[in-house]
Each structure stands twice: as structure tokens, then as C-alpha cells.
């Protein structure tokens, strides 16, 4: 294009500074709200995922094939496959991306004290391998994380459970669980109490040392799964595939399943998808309305400028140059608004990323979704590409809002300028 419309468009924009300002403001508010809500939404989701992963079975879980389809019967990872899995995790390409892995044995049983008894979920874990990755050790409010003292195996129990059984640090409890076709019972001593804020967990979970639980269920060396924690959660799909591939070649018998957290916690995944969809819908409607408002303003402005476009046409400006000029004006307007909105949105995001948004006034200390509890402090977080996506989307909307007015402007009757 030989004709440079930018300078003229820029000046046209400032012919009606208030109108330009208000229209840009509409986009600014749209972008600001979009970035802020994406930041808080992503932040909340990321926290839920993080909590889910750290309370549950990691970013990636390696477990016996079909473990999820059998009810009532516990499947165990064979010793060979456990060491194959450990070997894969230690391999050169994968080691650097793995923050840690924890072998665990799961069981269910009945926990009794002198006062009471209740059904529990038992996790057998190796404390050294849980430290710094699992959430449970961080939630200990009293005592230690399964440190051995004396001959009685240590137990870590939830605060709700301690209350229910009326026990405290040092108390004795008895765990009854099934070992094959027999019922086994084992005396444990409470060495630690945790409190996650999740009632379900605090009232039902017991953690013991892996070897102690293996002894109780008479399965030495057996584990239910290997929980794998990554340095970067976004690498989950890629690493899951790689671990799966390598494990398939190394495994003996049927290869273990390698599941991402999305597969292992489908309810959480679904919740996030639905919540995201809700956010998209809300933001979509909001921006659609902003766009309609902007479209209306641009159209009014274009209709007001009939005479001017007509003069330009008389002078030999091409209809498509007029279209371009109107679109350029609108895109400049959009850029101004989006720039201001980006600045405000980024500022808000940075603030909430650092200090968090306290939702306690809106809800309880913590709330629980899909079995995962999230405390009411939300830290803003933006997934990579969110800003680019937001800006492209708004640029598209600015373009869309200007297209019809721009075409209308190009259709102006050139004789308009010749009358009166």
C-alpha cells in the first residue's frame, strides 16, 4: 500500500478524545477483567491440582495394570516391575525432570483405641521419600513423621481421627486389616497428628511405615503404586508417555499402568474443565457485550463522518483504503485499550500472585472440590500463553467490531460531499 494511513488514523482518533478514551476504556476493562479472572482461576486450579497431586498420587502414578477396575481386591506392583519403574525414573532423560518418587502401600482397616474404633484408610510410606514432596508431612501439627521410637511401629493419624478415638501422641491404637483371607491386627503407637483441613482425610487417614504395613498384610516388598512428582507440572503428559514407553520395554509380564494426574483424578480434571468453561463463557459474554458497545460507537462515528469519507473518495482514495483506515483506527483504539487493560491486569495479577486474594470472607477456611481441599487464599497464576491468547482474542474482537463500520464507510456515496 502506497498510502500511509497511520498518521491520519492516529489523528482521527484524537478528534474526539473523550469518545476515544471511553471506547478504549471499555476494552481496557474487558482485558483487565479477563486477565484478573484468568489469573485467579488458573491460580485456584493450579493450587487444587497441586494439592490434589501432593495429597494424592503425584503428577504421574505407576500402578498395577487394572488396579482401578478391581473393587475389593488390592493389586500389587511386582518387585520386578517396581525396580523396573525405579530404573526408568533414574534413567538419564527422565531423572532431571523428576523431583521425587514415593512407593506406597494402601490398605483399609479398622483402627481402635481404648475408647472407640473406626474405619480407616492406611498408607504405608517411606518417610524419607515423602519429605519435601508429599503434603502430609507439612500438615503435621504434633509429633513426628513416622520416626521409630521403641519397638512399637509408629503411626501418623489425622486430627479428626485422634479426637474420635480420644488418643494423643504416645497413645496405643490397634489396626485390624485383612491379609489374604485372614484378619491381622497390629499394635501401633501414635507418634504424630496431622491436620489438613479436609474432614474426610483428617477423620479417616492413617499413615504408617511402608515396611510395617507390608509386614501386617504379609506382603514383604509389595507396593500399591509409585507416586512420581515432577519439577514442572506442565511436563506431565510428555513424561507420562515417555515413562510408559520405557517401562513397557523393561517390564516383565503385563506392563504397569502409567497414569497422569488427569487420568488418576478424573473428577478433579473434569471440575477444572467445567470451571474453565464457565469462566470462558462468562468472559466471552462480557467481551461480546464490550465488542457490541464498541461496534456501536465505531458505527455511529463512521455514520457521522459520511461527508469526510465522501470527500476522500472524491479525491481519489480507494474504497478499500477507507476500509483500511477505519480498521486501522479501530485497531489503534483496541491497542490503546488493550495496553491499558494489560497494564492494570498484569499489575493486579502480580499483586495477587505475591500477596494472594483472601476469600475467607466469602467461604470457610477451606473448601473442597472433587475430594481436594483448597484453602481460601488464592494466589494468581497465569498459564503460559494466557496473555498472548487474551491479546489476540481482543485484537480479533477489535477487528470484528470495526469490520462492518469499515465496510459501511467504504460504501459512502461520493456525491455526499458535493451537496450543500
Amino acid at each position, binding site marked *: 500500500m*502506497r*498510502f*500511509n494511513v497511520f498518521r*491520519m488514523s492516529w*489523528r*482521527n482518533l484524537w*478528534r474526539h478524545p473523550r469518545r476515544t478514551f471511553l471506547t478504549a476504556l471499555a476494552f481496557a476493562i474487558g482485558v483487565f477483567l479477563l486477565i484478573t479472572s484468568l489469573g485467579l482461576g488458573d491460580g485456584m486450579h493450579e493450587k487444587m491440582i497441586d494439592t490434589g497431586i501432593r495429597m494424592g498420587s503425584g503428577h504421574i502414578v505407576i500402578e498395577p495394570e487394572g488396579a482401578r477396575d478391581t473393587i475389593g481386591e488390592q493389586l500389587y506392583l511386582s518387585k520386578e516391575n517396581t525396580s523396573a519403574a525405579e530404573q526408568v525414573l533414574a534413567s538419564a532423560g527422565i531423572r532431571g525432570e523428576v523431583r521425587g518418587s514415593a512407593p506406597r502401600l494402601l490398605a483399609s482397616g479398622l483402627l481402635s483405641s481404648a475408647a472407640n474404633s473406626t474405619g480407616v484408610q492406611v498408607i504405608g510410606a517411606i518417610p524419607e521419600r515423602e519429605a519435601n514432596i508429599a503434603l502430609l508431612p507439612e500438615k503435621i501439627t504434633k509429633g513426628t513423621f513416622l520416626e521409630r521410637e521403641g519397638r512399637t511401629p509408629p503411626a501418623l493419624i489425622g486430627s479428626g481421627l485422634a479426637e474420635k478415638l480420644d488418643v494423643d501422641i504416645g497413645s496405643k491404637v490397634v489396626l485390624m486389616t485383612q491379609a489374604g483371607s485372614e484378619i491381622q491386627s497390629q499394635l501401633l503407637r501414635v507418634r504424630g497428628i496431622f491436620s489438613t483441613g479436609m474432614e474426610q482425610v483428617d477423620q479417616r487417614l492413617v499413615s504408617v511405615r511402608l515396611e510395617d504395613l507390608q509386614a501386617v498384610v504379609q506382603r514383604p516388598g509389595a507396593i500399591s503404586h509409585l507416586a512420581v512428582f515432577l519439577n514442572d507440572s506442565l511436563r506431565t503428559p510428555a513424561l507420562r508417555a515417555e515413562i510408559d514407553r520405557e517401562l513397557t520395554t523393561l517390564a516383565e509380564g503385563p506392563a504397569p499402568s502409567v497414569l497422569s494426574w488427569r487420568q488418576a483424578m478424573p473428577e478433579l480434571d473434569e471440575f477444572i474443565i467445567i470451571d474453565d468453561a464457565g469462566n470462558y463463557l462468562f468472559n466471552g459474554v462480557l467481551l461480546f457485550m464490550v465488542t457490541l458497545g464498541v461496534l456501536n460507537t465505531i458505527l455511529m462515528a463512521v455514520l457521522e463522518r459520511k*461527508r*469526510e469519507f465522501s*470527500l*476522500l*473518495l*472524491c*479525491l*481519489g*482514495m*480507494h*474504497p*478499500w*483504503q477507507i476500509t483500511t483506515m477505519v480498521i486501522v483506527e479501530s485497531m489503534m483504539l483496541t491497542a490503546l485499550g488493550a495496553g491499558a487493560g494489560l497494564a492494570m491486569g498484569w499489575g493486579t495479577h502480580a499483586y495477587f500472585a505475591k500477596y494472594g486474594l483472601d476469600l475467607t470472607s466469602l467461604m470457610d477456611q477451606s473448601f473442597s472440590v472433587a475430594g481436594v481441599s483448597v484453602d481460601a487464599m488464592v494466589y494468581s497464576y497465569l498459564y503460559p500463553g494466557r496473555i498472548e491468547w487474551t491479546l489476540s482474542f481482543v485484537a480479533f474482537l477489535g477487528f470484528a467490531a470495526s469490520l462492518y463500520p469499515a465496510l459501511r464507510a467504504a460504501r459512502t456515496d*461520493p*456525491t455526499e*460531499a*458535493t*451537496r*450543500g
Partner: protein
Amino acid sequence: MTSHSKPAVRTDSVRKIFKSGDQTVAAVDGVTLEIHRGEFAAIAGPSGSGKTTLLNLIGALDEPDEGKVWIDDTEITTLSRGQRADLRKDKIGFIFQSYNLIEVLSALENAEFVLLLQGVPPSERRRRVTEMFKKIGLEGLENRRPHQLSGGQQQRVAIARAIVASPSLVLADEPTANLDSATGAALLDVMQELNQEIGTTFVFSTHDPRVMDRASRLIRLVDGKIEDDH
């Protein structure tokens, strides 16, 4: 001048009909005429006689319902909107009664505008416009915006804009109607001078007998028809 033999504009039985409600008006009704290079022609006639409509047809702004119009050798009635815009850019200068200028551009930028559309390089544009400003008494007003200029000055800028682009003809629809008589007369002086010096072809419309007297040719319109042409 040999160029006199070749018409800048030619029309053949052009008709333009406007419908408003159930009334139809033949604003231009079978006009056949030739305007030659270098002419300084006036179209006169009472209000509503079709002067503006005829100029719009000659200027490729409007399409006739019947008949044909040629600019140089181009038959314009078959052209698309875009082609007509190109033709106006390259061959026709326009001066209207008022509101001729682009508000957001300075006097200099306004005068450069058609050259800009034509793709003339900046230094060349500036040179031609500066020279023209000097010639028609606009020196020193280059950076003023249209609202900072008097009516007469604005019309001069419009003339400068038309002339610097070296059009085949300049169409002016009542260029002096909004000016007081002294300013109008001065503007006509400028046009006449340019016509004589550079040989620019002018076709302008007017009600004003004093303006008609300046013309080398007077075409009288009544009810869309040529009543007299000498």
C-alpha cells in the same frame, strides 16, 4: 494549441433521474457537450437546474441513467467504483463550495493529499506544494489546520491540492458561493491565472453574473437541459 482539439471531457445525451417519493426529476436531461483542454468554462443556471448533478457526472462521482461520459479517452460509465476512484485521483481535481479540507491534516498535508494517493515521493510532494503555495499566496500558512484558515484561504488550499496533482480538469461547484465578493474575485483571479499560465482546464458552476463574466465559455442550464452554450 493542439490540445484544444482533443476534449478533456465529452458527454453524449446524459440523463440523470432522481426519484423522491412518487415524483421523478430529470436533474440532467440529455446533455451533450465537449470541454476542451485549457478551457475556463462556467455552468450557470438557477437553483435546481442540474449544475451539481452534471458536475458529479463529469467528475465520475455519479453514474448517469442514460448516455455516456468520457474523460480524456476513457468511457467512465463502464468503470467500477474503484476504477472511478483511480480515475479521479489521476485526472480530476475537485473544489467544492465548502468543507473541502480534511480536518486532521494541516494546509500543507491537505494540499499534498492527492499526490500522496498518487504515490509521489515526499520530497517531490513538498517541493510542488511549496511552490504552489507561494504562487497562490498561501506562504506561511503551511502548518495551519483548516479551522485556523479563513474561507478564502481554505478554498485556495483546495485549489492548490487540485492543481499540484496535474489533473486533466478541475471541477469547481460554486467555489465562491461562501465567500464575500472581494475574496471570491481574488479566488477567481487565482484560478484564471493558473488556467492561463499552466493551461489547467476549469469547469465551474455559479449563480453569480460577475463570475460568469470571467468565463471563456458559458453553458446555461435550465431544467437539466442546455439552453445556451457560447
